[in-house]
């Protein structure tokens, strides 16, 4: 692990043979469906299917039959992880890193298959599915290296007669509660951050993406992570709740909705009987992300960036842009071109190259989008939508532009997690900043401006965790754009950044008096 970190190369999908390889991998995956996803605790697998994940583009296609973890499974998994934490935690960081590097190799070897799985189970379009797998590999490689650095400990001030050392110890058991929208990357990232620092892990994947999670756990086990150190606990909210409440859990790493995140924090704050530690919560929650367009912006760049940020993966990224705050001088021009660009979007199944907007993850998401768009329309806002929609019973929602909505409308205020962009006129960048400042969320923000002073001023006053200048708001890269929000968007942790691992360790300082009878020994 002496080489420096570099991001896993994306597939060069502009070359036809790369695309053909992916389509072949998809056929191979399809031939094995439905997959079986068991509960895995200490290496033993219990396969008694109780729920299923489906292809959002064709819900009659079952991707995986999964077994829901019981309260007993949760308890067993936490105890196993506690035991594992002792040995795994005592394993030198460099050895753990070497094992994780093998896991990265395993993910790399299976990258086409994993991308195909994300296409099927979560309807991620190919480029995004491939990026998801690459990001997972990046997290493994990056955190493994960071853990080795962290293990060396920082230098402390040393005076004659005393020896001071600081080192970081694993916290113990980490419960990972992962989302479906980056089914490979985020589940892998949180899990590997915990493992690299010597913790035992209980992974509860989203109920929509158990098969992707199984692939991750298998890669870790094949690579040599001790069986007790990683448990797979498929299921719904009750499994996550049981983990959060369990007195043996030390850290909860969560990515998901704000509602669930706040509930986790409340629960975690309350020590269970017999619990002798404070639980720590790493929470990445939603966003209501704005893209600010100043009057001097290059509209040729703005339109594609807005389209990609708002409608890529149908807006189901926490970083997606959902409000465009456009200088009043150019808003008519921007709106006209945006509407025209919206009409070029192809809505369809994720497995087709060239599809711009895939289906949403489930029916209730479509209903949420329709409710919010309907309310905006009856409130008098102008609504422009893609008209040509695919037939069939996939969970498709039409990409939508909403102009002139009231500031208190749901489309302006709420996180939608769907293909909807509210376009609003602002007097100037200052007014845009005030609107952003009024929000409870503070995850990402985009700014298009060609004046360095404007850029510096927005950077100074923005509350968000990630500000993107003259580009779209999505696609953070490990090691390059450490990612995470402030305010109600999260507790400021930065996935893929140099300080992320600090949430999975506890610092211990040892000070030894080296003076004996006036002599330094």
């Amino acid at each position: 692990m002496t080489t420096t970190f570099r991001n896993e190369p994306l597939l060069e999908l502009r070359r036809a043979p790369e695309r053909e390889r992916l389509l072949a991998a998809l056929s191979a995956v399809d031939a094995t469906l439905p997959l079986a996803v068991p509960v895995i605790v200490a290496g033993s697998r219990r396969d008694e299917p109780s729920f299923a994940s489906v292809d959002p583009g064709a819900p009659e296609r079952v991707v995986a039959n999964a077994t829901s973890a019981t309260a007993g499974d949760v308890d067993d998994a936490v105890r196993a992880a506690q035991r594992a934490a002792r040995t795994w935690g005592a394993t030198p960081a460099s050895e753990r890193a070497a094992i994780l590097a093998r896991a990265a190799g395993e993910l790399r070897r299976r990258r086409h298959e994993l991308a195909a799985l994300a296409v099927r189970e979560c309807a991620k379009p190919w480029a995004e599915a491939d990026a998801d797998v690459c990001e997972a590999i990046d997290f493994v490689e990056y955190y493994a290296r960071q853990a080795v650095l962290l293990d060396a400990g920082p230098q402390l001030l040393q005076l004659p007669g005393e020896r001071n050392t600081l080192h970081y110890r694993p916290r113990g058991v980490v419960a990972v509660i992962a989302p479906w929208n980056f089914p490979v990357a985020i589940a892998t990232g949180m899990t590997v951050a915990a493992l690299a620092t010597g913790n035992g892990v209980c992974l509860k994947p989203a109920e929509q993406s158990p098969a992707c999670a199984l692939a991750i756990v298998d890669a870790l086990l094949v690579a040599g992570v001790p069986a007790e150190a990683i448990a797979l606990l498929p299921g719904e909210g009750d499994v996550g709740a049981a983990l959060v409440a369990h007195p043996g859990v030390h850290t909860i790493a969560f990515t998901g909705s704000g509602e669930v995140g706040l509930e986790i924090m409340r629960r975690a704050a309350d020590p269970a009987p017999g619990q002798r530690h404070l639980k720590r919560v790493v929470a990445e929650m939603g966003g209501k992300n704005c893209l600010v367009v100043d009057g001097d912006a290059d509209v040729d760049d703005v339109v594609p960036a807005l389209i990609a940020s708002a409608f890529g993966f149908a807006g189901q990224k926490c970083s997606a842009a959902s409000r465009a705050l456009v200088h009043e001088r150019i808003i008519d021009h921007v709106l006209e071109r945006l509407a025209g660009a919206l009409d070029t979007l192809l809505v369809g199944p994720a497995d087709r190259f060239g599809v711009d907007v895939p289906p949403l993850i489930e029916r209730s998401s479509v209903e949420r989008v329709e409710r919010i768009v309907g309310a905006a329309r009856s409130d008098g806002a102008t609504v422009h939508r893609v008209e040509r929609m695919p037939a069939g019973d996939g969970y498709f929602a039409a990409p939508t532009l909403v102009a002139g909505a009231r500031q208190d409308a749901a489309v302006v205020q709420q996180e939608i997690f769907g293909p909807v962009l509210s376009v609003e006129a602002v007097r100037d960048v200052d007014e845009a900043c005030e609107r952003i400042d009024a929000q409870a969320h503070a995850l990402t923000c985009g700014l298009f401006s060609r004046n360095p002073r404007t850029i510096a001023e927005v950077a100074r006053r923005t509350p968000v965790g990630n500000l993107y200048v003259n580009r779209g708001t999505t696609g953070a890269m490990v090691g390059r754009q450490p990612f995470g929000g402030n305010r109600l968007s999260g507790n400021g942790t930065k996935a893929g950044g140099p300080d992320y691992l600090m949430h999975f360790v506890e610092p211990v300082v040892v000070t030894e008096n080296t003076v004996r009878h006036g002599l330094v020994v």
Partner: protein
Amino acid sequence: MPTTAPVEAPRSGPAPEAAIDAEVLELGRRLARRRPSVRNLSRVANDRMMALVARDPQLRAALFRLVDVAPACADADELAAHLDAFLSDVEHHSPPVALAARASTARGARHATGRIGFAAVRQMAGRFIVGETPASAAPALRRLWERGSAISVDLLGEATVTHDEGRAYADRCDETLVTLAAAAQQWPARPLLERDSAGVLPRVNLSVKVTALTPLIRAEAPERGRADAADHLRRLLRRARDVGAHLHIDMESMDSRDLILELVLELLSEPEFKAGPSAGIVLQAYLRDSEETLDGILDWAGAADRAVPLAIRLVKGAYWDHETIEALQNGWVPPVYTEKVESDRCYERITRRLIDVHPLVRPAIASHNLRSVAHAVVYARRAGLATHDLELQVLRGLGDDLQDALAAEGLRGRTYCPVGDMVAGMAYLVRRLLENTSNDSFLASRTGGAALDPLLIRP
């Protein structure tokens, strides 16, 4: 008119390289010796300024940012505010910069500075752009023709992100073909420019960009853009055929390379285009796989049953920074060479192949590099090509002196002439300015005062 001459054998055996190099040196010196004509004197001053700018990376960045943002500024005050912000990033102020910096901050001088800024940008744009519309450009095109240069018109425009924009661009191209066809009938005869050994060379020549014809270019799904662009391109090919014009399809970045090439060759194979129009494509020598691409094109040309040979414009490639950055950010092996000399060598290899296969295709050497140009001329001469069988192309605003020198040598040249307004032209202008001031560029080395002979030796 279709020629059936053997494809392989060059007319005379390959010349010893040393002998070629001596002739190339001699021709290169002759081409360079021609002084800029009177019409180009303001450009000489402009070039001096560019040379100054090229030496200071921060100043260069400030100038580009100013040119880039100018069309988006509401008024002179806003432009001055930008200038002020850009200059505050420049650390060491030479006297003129210090003056400009003071003027763009001072309340009273601000408006005037902004207006001077606009005027300067407009003047720079005027150097590269022949007119705002085809009709208003027509007189300038005629003057070029009379001076001994054929033309190719390129319509500048905003990026195409909507179907309406794609249609509007196709409409403009269509109208341009009609307008210029009418205008060109009045031009005086220029035998050298109007015929090569394969036949007539159309006076009207339009360069089109496929990415401007369709908003559906998706690197990972070429079939979408191809289908959409095909309709527009067919319409333009028909018009070109009907008015007797040449249609040239420019090459852009790697993201659309395969799409463009496949689209054009496919359409030209359609029965309705068998008899015409004259058409061409572009080959970029900076691409590592350009020689394989040429294999494919020549196979196609050998099998195609068309009345007019395909024209191939050989360039080094205008998207080097884009390709390199994109590849680095995505972890790819860059599709372009990383050393300038590799592009230059590849350019010469392909030049020789294009000449060797004559008359299978019509070669057009598009470069401002005297070595690249002189090499092509000397090799073609030694291979036994008639003078009119080699076309040499330059860009308006960068290659005007070279074009004059080529005409004086009795060589057949063509000037690529962008047409459009300042807003539409800004992206083009910035690219040309970058090219003119980048360290590796032949032109920048020359305006910067580098000695000629070392630039003329074999790469």
